[in-house]
């Protein structure tokens, strides 16, 4: 009988009930998506260093090394010698070493001088094929394009391009002596690699040669063919270890290396530190979300309260018919609880739908993998706090109102 009563009563004021539900649904949406967006961004960050156990560079700040090597933000202040790279590349316990030579660009996109290890690294850390088209460079004057670069510039395989010295969009100094041929286009990874071009370390070395010396090279030398093209500097390198247990040991060995000052960082730790700096963003977002939830709770309460005043006669009648007060409180709680519960379910469904839609768009447009993960804690908070708060308010108000009845 009580469910019937609650149901019919809600049905009789379906418009205001719908507004209540919409209010709760929207606040749930805000609360959940604020959190999901933040966590999505966080997880995109973490993906950028997936599979990298140590990042090694010349001593600088931990965050700085992380930013220029993994996110291609900022520039290295100093470089390491190629010997150091080779020393650790061949060191037992190192499964893979990816060299990074930075400092050149093309149309504002950064160029990374690296080797086959980079593609091995991509293959190991992503489920999909490394290339959507073509293959890795096999010759010095060949280049592969990140997904975003190929999409933005519209370059097909076989396109010829020149690299610029420096990182600006309008570099004055072009490496125009030699053109590079596009041999491959990378699959989207949702990491900063999408916005880079990759060439061999030999290529970086070659384009920085004086024009006269460069002219002595054959038109398209095969990689490893010309010993003179072996670089002598490297900006940084990634290390993937065979056994993660030795990470700290190797990190210490690198940091204490006596050949030259070297710094090794754990990218996960550096990212955590970076997010630590950004902590206030999460706080602000969560604060906004909670504020939205609070507003919805107040909105629901105010709408139910205004009805309460109009329903005094109804409660009086129920009381006359012999309804205990407990029955009336429960009825009120049931009504507001139902509104809030429906609102939260609708809001959650809406969030899932929107995010699913968004992640499809994100995946296809930016190659951005947006993990759909609703924060159980936030949802739990919303689910528990809202009805509790609402129910409490309503019941208190109801009790207060009923206490004034004869």
């Amino acid at each position, binding site marked *: *009988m009580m469910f*019937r*009563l609650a149901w*019919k*009563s809600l*049905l*009789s004021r379906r418009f205001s009930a719908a507004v209540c539900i919409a209010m709760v649904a929207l606040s749930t949406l805000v609360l959940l998506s604020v959190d999901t967006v933040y966590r999505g961004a966080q997880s995109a960050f973490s993906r950028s260093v997936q599979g990298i156990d140590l990042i090694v560079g010349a001593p600088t700040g931990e965050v700085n090394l992380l930013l220029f090597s993994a996110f291609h933000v900022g520039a290295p202040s100093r470089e390491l010698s190629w010997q150091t790279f080779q020393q650790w590349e061949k060191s037992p316990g190192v499964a893979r070493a990816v060299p990074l030579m930075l400092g050149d660009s093309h149309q504002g996109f950064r160029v990374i001088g690296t080797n086959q290890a980079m593609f091995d690294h991509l293959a190991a850390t992503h489920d999909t094929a490394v290339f959507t088209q073509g293959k890795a460079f096999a010759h010095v004057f060949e280049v592969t394009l990140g997904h975003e670069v190929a999409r933005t510039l519209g370059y097909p395989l076989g396109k010829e391009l020149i690299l610029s010295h420096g990182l600006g969009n309008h570099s004055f100094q072009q490496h125009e002596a030699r053109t590079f041929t596009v041999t491959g286009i990378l699959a989207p990874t949702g990491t900063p690699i999408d916005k880079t071009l990759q060439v061999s370390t030999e290529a970086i070395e070659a384009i920085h040669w004086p024009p006269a010396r460069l002219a002595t090279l054959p038109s398209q030398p095969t990689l490893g063919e010309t010993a003179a093209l072996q670089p002598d500097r490297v900006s940084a390198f990634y290390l993937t270890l065979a056994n993660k247990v030795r990470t700290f040991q190797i990190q210490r060995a690198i940091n204490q290396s006596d050949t030259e000052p070297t710094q090794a960082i754990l990218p996960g730790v550096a990212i955590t530190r970076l997010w630590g700096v950004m902590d206030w963003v999460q706080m602000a977002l969560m604060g906004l979300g909670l504020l939205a939830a609070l507003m919805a709770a107040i909105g629901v309460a105010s709408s139910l309260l205004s009805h309460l005043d109009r329903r005094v*006669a*109804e409660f*009086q*009648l*129920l*009381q*006359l*018919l*012999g*309804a*205990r*007060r407990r*029955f009336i409180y429960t009825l009120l709680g049931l009504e507001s609880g139902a509104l809030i519960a429906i609102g939260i379910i609708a809001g959650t469904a809406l969030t899932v739908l929107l995010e699913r839609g968004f992640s499809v768009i994100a995946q296809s447009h930016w190659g951005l993998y947006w993990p759909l993960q609703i924060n159980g804690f936030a949802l739990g908070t919303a689910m528990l706090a809202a009805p509790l708060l609402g129910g409490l308010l309503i019941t208190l108000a109801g009790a207060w109102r009923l206490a004034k*009845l*004869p």
Partner: protein
Amino acid sequence: MNPREYAINIAELEYGHRQGPRWRLPKWQLAAGQTVFLEAPSGAGKSTLLNLLAGLLSPTKGELRVLGEPLHQRHAAQTAPWRARQLGIIFQNLNVLDYLSCLDNIRLAAHFAHRHEQDTGAKAADLLQRLNLPDSILHTQASQLSVGQRQRVAIARALINDPPLILADEPTSALDDTNSRDFMNLLFDLVRERGCTLVFASHDRSLGERFDQQIQLSEVSQPL
């Protein structure tokens, strides 16, 4: 007469708060099966008396027994189950919940009295028939009824649990003469048939003739 046989037995009843108006009723006894017309101009304490009789208010002082129940010893919040089983109450207006069907309104009363739902439907249909309401009205939403129909549904609702005592508070004041006359006839037929005690409060003296007793509330009670 044994005090337990009185439907209503009041002795030295007082009600009121120290600050607010206070009100006293020295003695009033009503035998079971009687119909009584309580004439009271507004402000004479009519609502107070009816609320006391229904157990919605607790007396400040004195003795108040309704159908043998010592209401002066009960807290108002505890009287709900007793009220559901023993009383039929008809109000001036708002006797039915607009958003429920007539049947659901009647069922509500049976629900609080813990009656079985199956019996209720058939009984409600019988009562509505006696009240000259068509069967179809059973499933009509109450908001679609006329005022006269609503008050008749209220009678059905008040009688569904076969209560020994009916309290009516100005039930005809919203009705026109014809409807009012019909209402009184139907109410009396059913009350006599069942031998219920009826306390009927109104300011309209013309309704009082057919009652066993007519009481001027201002004559038996006094403000303090």
